[in-house]
């Protein structure tokens, strides 16, 4: 799956509404102590595909 702005928006919605829940699932895929900082780093540095669609 490619990372698009929609992917980021979906995770952003969860981070805003329930950061504890996002943290729980982050730790379920990787239990290392620095998972949060790595996630933030990846999120901040993620290059996403443009939202444009040929359907629109």
């Amino acid at each position, binding site marked *: *799956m*490619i*990372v*698009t702005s*929609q*992917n*980021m*928006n*979906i*995770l952003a*919605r*969860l981070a805003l*509404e*329930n950061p*504890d*829940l996002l943290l*729980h*699932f*982050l730790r*379920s*895929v*990787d239990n290392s102590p620095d*998972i949060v900082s*790595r*996630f933030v780093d*990846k*999120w901040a540095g*993620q290059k996403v*595909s443009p*939202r444009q*669609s*040929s*359907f629109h």
Partner: protein
Amino acid sequence: MGLFPKAISCLQLGSENLKKVLRIIESYIILDPVGIMRRYADKLFSGFAALTVDLKPEASRTVMNVVEVAIQGCPLDLYFATFVESGLFFKILAAVMDDDVCPPSKSYGLGVSDGVGEYDCDFAEYEYPSSVGS
């Protein structure tokens, strides 16, 4: 309303049909996001989770757009359990985190059934904070 479950069933069809089906699904969600998600969130997310295997970037972008529309119109507690149980949430999370973050035993995107229900126990074990669902 009877068309919607049929549209979900059509998600597995070819690419040209997929565009039309996604438009139909998106239109239904825009018209009644809470009603649609309350009745069909499980089938919808399961269909999308199966669909995200080997999708081309354009199609993946369109699918994620529909998912985003769906969750934007609903409260978190209405859809999140099925979102996780379908495996779609973990596919999105894994895409952002990259494969090297995920343990080798937890594969993503290798088959239709991969990831679906794989993390049910994680969700079941989570205790919601008191603010969730209120």
